[in-house]
């Protein structure tokens, strides 16, 4: 995506605020370097797939089920769907359908250098995505992962912006959302610096306040610019009114110099000044009779700050904000921050929580996200470590999502979900933790994570229990297209 306004005017993204375009759907064939365009399935006719059973990812199970897929999306899903006109039917009634898994915390598609260096919100993650090898992509698909939230490492405080990408069997990343979230982090200094969470909270608060100011200024500048445009038009109109007598002269002058003037208007306006030519002595606008309206003053150009734009998007609740908070104090401060700025917060790896915060989190609609359960937890295996923390959140009504954190390859995502179940999460909760809730924690809940109307048709078909990590999917549909047999392992 284009960060700063493109130089050659014209393209739709040229207005500066448009770089926010968090909801800009990016195109598939990025790898081919070809023209942008969303992933279009080859077949135009809708496809009705009948399956024996479908886990929707929302907690619902349909048995049997029919899924109508067209233009890369799920048009409808139900127990029995009427066959639309012209639709093709595919009978997979021996198989079970499940949504493609989402790894909400992955380092796949990041160049090795980006996996080490901490990033700030300004870095355009989606432009930095690199392709992985086709064998790796197949490996991930074999494990059922179809989308991931690319999460570069961050520093304490303001962390990186996140991007969501979908897998392509060729290993080329297809960005789904260029800006799908923002990551914040409380200190991991631990007992050495007990006050660090308070300090970081203060700094974060300051940052968001600054962003709020920025947002106001930006909105004001946009308004002013609009006003100026209006005034400018009025001014030109006023000038034209004063002109009629001169019209003949005005027409003559350019005709004497054929190339000098170009038709003004939207066409010329959108083109930057170009073309050779040396300044010639032009007739100075001499003092004119009549009342010349005052020339409206152009407002000072507003400088778009990419980092502030990301924070502003968070303030507008366009993207979720992940807050890494491990101790109960950090969790408290994170919740406070989320409450004060009305953020769509995702708590990352809260290993302890006060009961009151638990209720608060549930009320605020917060999601919690965990990395690999077997190795990431600080103090894992210590007597104080509560293995049942996931179940605790689940019981309180807080959705739990699971990711691999770049510690593991996303190929182990389903294994981690199984482990979460063994750790006490309900079977349904463990499955949602890598589908719907994972999509929520990745900021792509509207696009992926479950088999629902309007979402991407990333569907896995299993000959058994989709939650069994030992079972590879029989078939995989990506963006409404089945992977060819030879791509499947």
């Amino acid at each position, binding site marked *: 995506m284009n960060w700063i306004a493109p130089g050659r005017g014209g393209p739709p993204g040229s207005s500066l605020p448009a770089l926010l375009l968090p909801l800009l759907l990016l195109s598939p064939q990025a790898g081919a370097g070809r023209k942008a365009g969303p992933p279009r399935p080859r077949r135009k006719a809708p496809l009705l797939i009948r399956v024996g059973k479908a886990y929707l990812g929302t907690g619902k199970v349909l048995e049997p089920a029919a899924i109508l897929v067209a233009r890369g999306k799920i048009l409808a899903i139900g127990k029995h769907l009427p066959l639309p006109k012209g639709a093709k039917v595919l009978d997979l009634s021996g198989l079970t359908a499940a949504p493609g898994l989402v790894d909400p915390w992955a380092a796949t598609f990041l160049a090795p250098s980006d996996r080490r260096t901490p990033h700030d919100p300004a870095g355009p993650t989606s432009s930095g995505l690199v392709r992985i090898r086709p064998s790796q992509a197949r490996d991930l698909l074999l*494990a059922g992962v179809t989308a991931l939230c690319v999460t570069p490492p961050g520093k304490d405080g303001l962390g990186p912006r996140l991007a969501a990408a979908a897998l392509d069997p060729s290993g080329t990343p297809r960005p789904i959302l260029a800006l799908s979230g923002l990551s914040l982090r409380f200190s991991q200094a631990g007992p050495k610096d007990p006050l660090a969470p308070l300090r970081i909270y203060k700094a974060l608060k300051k940052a968001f306040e600054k962003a709020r100011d920025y947002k106001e200024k930006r909105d004001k500048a946009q308004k002013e610019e609009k006003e100026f445009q209006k005034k400018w038009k009025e001014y030109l109109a006023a000038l034209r009114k004063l002109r009629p007598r001169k019209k003949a002269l005005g027409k003559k002058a350019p005709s004497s110099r054929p190339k000098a003037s170009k038709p003004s208007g939207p066409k010329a306006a959108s083109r930057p000044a170009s073309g050779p030519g040396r300044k010639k002595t032009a007739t100075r606008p001499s003092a004119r009779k009549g009342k010349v309206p005052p020339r409206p003053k152009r407002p000072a150009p507003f400088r778009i700050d990419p980092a502030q734009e990301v924070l502003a998007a968070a303030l507008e609740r366009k993207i979720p904000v992940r807050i890494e908070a491990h101790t109960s104090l950090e969790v408290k401060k994170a919740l406070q921050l989320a409450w004060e700025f009305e953020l769509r917060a995702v708590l990352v790896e809260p290993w302890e929580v006060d009961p009151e915060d638990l209720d608060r989190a549930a009320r605020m609609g917060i999601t919690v996200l965990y990395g690999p359960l077997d*190795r990431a937890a600080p103090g894992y*295996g210590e007597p104080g470590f509560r293995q*049942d923390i996931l179940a605790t959140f689940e019981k309180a009504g807080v959705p739990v999502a699971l990711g691999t954190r770049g510690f593991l390859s996303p190929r182990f995502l389903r294994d981690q979900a199984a482990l979460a*179940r063994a750790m006490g999460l309900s079977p349904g909760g463990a499955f949602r933790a890598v589908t719907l809730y994972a999509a929520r924690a990745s900021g792509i809940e509207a696009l992926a994570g479950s088999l629902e109307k309007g979402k991407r048709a990333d569907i896995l078909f299993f000959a058994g229990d989709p939650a069994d990590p*030992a079972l590879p999917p029989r078939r995989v549909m990506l963006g409404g297209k089945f992977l060819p047999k030879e791509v499947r392992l």
Partner: protein
Amino acid sequence: MRRNTLFWISSLLGALPALPAPAQDVLVLRAGKILVAPGKVLPRGTMVVREGKVFALGRDLATPAGAKELDFPTAVVVPGWVDSWTQATSAGETQELSTAWTPEIRAADALDLESPLWERFARWGVTSVVVTPDPAQVGGGLACLVKTGRKARLVEKALFLQFSLTSRARNRERPPTSLAGQVALIRRNFRKAPKEGPLARALSGKLPALFACRTPAEVQAALRLAAEFHLPKVLLEAPQACRPLPSLLEGSGVGLILTPPGKEAPPWSLGIPAALAGKGLPFAFASACPSYPPVELRLLPAPARRRGLDPVRALAAVTVTPARLLDLSWRIGSLRLGRDADFLVLDGPPAHPGSRILSVFVEGRPVWTAPAGAAKESPK
């Protein structure tokens, strides 16, 4: 947590004394399924455990008078898992850096049987753990076997003699510094081996010799040494990310212990177990704790199965195969008659990593039991 567990143990076992079981101690276990050994299932079976051993197996066996009876009508009982290669002791304790040649040292002498680690092993279904000295010594010393649980028990002090050809045993501060030097050191010491002691026993086949390897070159060096000295009983420890393993081991008669493929291991490394199984080569999974947490053993078979390893082989690789490779199949790895009554009670299929472990028994006594539902909130 500890208090909770204790509570559950005592509530389950009632008046069962905590100290060594009296001779008349008998446990009768009924379960939806009893997996005696991988591939051998006893549906709606009964198992009688006496003095910590499997005494009888069958259907609807009567409960003797005075015996404790447990009934899991829907659960699956499987043999306890064997973690066949770890350095699960407090950090650095098994690393003897002063010299490279220490065949007499014993991991058994560095064990902390009070460590919470053993309970963690038990929690993840591992009932027997092989602890070896750190592979930082070329002539690395003797491995031991520990039965897990809150009160872990050392059951075998000299399981095998370990040699390390890994880069961990090459050190700029201490000879040797190269693989050729490691081999030269081993050769020199094999040639002038004493008449007695672990080295002599390993050379005569009374004790298995295990070579820890990481790269294909190291595996080949181990195989060459084994052939040169006609070692009768050889084991190899190698990571899954060692590509030519199946072709190198073919026809060598060497047992293999596979350690985890590692974080960034290439996709093909997950296919190595299936390739080994395809050639009929015996292999066991190991967690290599503390490099990987104990739970790793539970997670190893599933990715391999996605790549074509059959479930029976996968389960065997954490039960009967390690027992056989370690010459311990008379004791662990299965629930056949006379074996130790080390078993897990699972609420789902045994090979599914999502199956919850309800209880873990070692030698007939429960060592870990899952809390019934999530515990109440109790912030620190």
